[in-house]
């Protein structure tokens, strides 16, 4: 979803070492689940808020990037609200009664989910696909001795990311071409809609293969041969800001653990 929609800017987050960014994003997403009370949730959101404000990504863009997953967040909220029946009843809406337990669980789940999505989106917005692939390669490099093809995997990742927008455009083009021939993608039940996809899917696959062939020819004619002896234009080197970010995340984690165990 949010991957591949890079927002070009020059912020602290953009300049961060992608390896650190990746690890921090993943650890943050795990840490979110340590928060089980209001104070914890506030800390989790505060951390995210600081990250967003440092990222230089316009709020408008962030919101529009999250629109597709908002449905899921709202759905989670409503389901929890309706089906959890612990605590005191707050209000009755027809046959459904909302309880305090339901309300707090719903709020928790929805907020956690939202934080999860915002963190992912932020990673996508501040990390170009090249940086992302570099970061992944850097993280996988230690496992190379166990036979993990780190360079190849990251190359696959960066090519895949690069082709998302291209194939999206292609899909739009094919859909327009087929609807000019009378195809209807807007009406009908599930089965007719599914059948309508076939005339789009086949040409899309063909085009993916065509792109793959062109790309492999281009790579081969430039004597690409994988990891062996390759040097990099941009050598990843952690800077002070990367360690600050790690420290901030560690503090957040410690605070959440403390909250949970009642030490605070």
């Amino acid at each position, binding site marked *: 979803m949010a991957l591949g929609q890079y927002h070009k800017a020059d912020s602290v987050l953009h300049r961060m070492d992608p390896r650190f960014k990746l690890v921090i994003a993943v650890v943050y997403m795990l840490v979110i689940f340590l928060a089980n009370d209001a104070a914890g949730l506030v800390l989790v959101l505060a951390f995210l808020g600081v990250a967003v404000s440092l990222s230089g990504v316009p709020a408008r863009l962030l919101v529009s990037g999250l629109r597709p997953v908002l449905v899921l967040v709202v759905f989670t909220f409503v389901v929890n609200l309706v089906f959890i029946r612990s605590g005191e009843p707050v209000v009755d809406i027809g046959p459904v009664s909302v309880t305090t337990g339901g309300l707090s669980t719903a709020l928790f789940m929805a907020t956690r989910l939202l934080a999860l999505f915002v963190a992912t989106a932020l990673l996508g917005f501040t990390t170009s696909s090249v940086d992302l692939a570099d970061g992944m390669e850097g993280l996988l490099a230690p496992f190379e001795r166990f036979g993990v093809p780190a360079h190849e995997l990251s190359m696959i990742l960066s090519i895949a990311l690069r082709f998302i927008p291209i194939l999206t455009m292609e899909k739009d*083009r*094919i859909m*327009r071409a087929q609807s*000019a*021939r*009378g*195809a209807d993608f807007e009406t009908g039940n599930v089965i007719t809609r599914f059948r309508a996809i*076939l005339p789009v899917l*086949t*040409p899309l696959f063909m085009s993916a293969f065509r792109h793959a062939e062109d790309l492999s020819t281009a790579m081969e004619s430039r004597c690409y041969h994988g990891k062996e002896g390759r040097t990099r234009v941009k050598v990843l080197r952690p800077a002070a800001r990367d360690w600050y970010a790690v420290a901030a995340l560690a503090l957040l984690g410690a605070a959440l653990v403390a909250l949970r165990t009642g030490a605070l």
Partner: protein
Amino acid sequence: MPIRFDHVTYAYPATRGDAQPALVDVDLTVADGEFLGVIGHTGSGKSTLIQHINGLLLPTTGRVTVDGIDLVDRTARREVRRRVGLVFQYPEHQLFADTVAEDVAFGPRALGLPAGEIEQLVITALERVGLDFCEVGHRSPFELSGGQMRRVAIAGVLATRPGTLVLDEPMAGLDPVGRGAMRELLRTLHHQGLTVIMVSHDMEDVAALADRVLVLRNGAVYACGTTSDVFSHHAELREIGLGVPRAALFAARLAARGVVLHAHPLTVEALADAIASACTSHREVG
């Protein structure tokens, strides 16, 4: 079926705040049986323009009517899509079915025509693009040559028997032989009574085929007139990054050296004729 653009402006939904419209106040009428060439620099709005003709895009302001039918109406749009066949760039990339016949039948079937009628439509459509149903009908479209695939794709659009054919760069990527054959095909279709609108960046193709030429620049109509009229404005066309047909250029160079031809030749053949007749009259005078 006349196609009317009534002060059409179109702006793509702003993604990053740049609301520069792709079409600006386009006013245009295409008469029945006409062959209109559309030229313009990359990004001048050619593709946006043709997608308005069958309602794939709807004007932000203004109105597009085909045969008096306003394309804003959703049910009318379906009817207009049958009447106006739109052939995109590299149309062979939209082929998908197991056999050529199946692919060509896609349009008529989507329109819900009876099965008995569809087969005849497929046979006729293939015939019109110079392919034999018995020979290629049962074959996979993917085992045909590039030029043949493009013909199949055009047949797929012709199968619904549109009165107007709109083509976006129909010659793109074809070799000289395929190019010549495509020109011939379009000429034949036009002579059969189809209204043809062709977007092209190749001035030779436009000069050889079109009755009238529309020049777009930054989404607005820069010029619109008969082919010879438009191509007589060399300097203006050059200024906006477009060329003129070789024959017209040659005639202009001759004129600059004092040899004035009495016609405005647009094709090499017409140029040869004009030079020949100029020589004859010169000899008679001399």
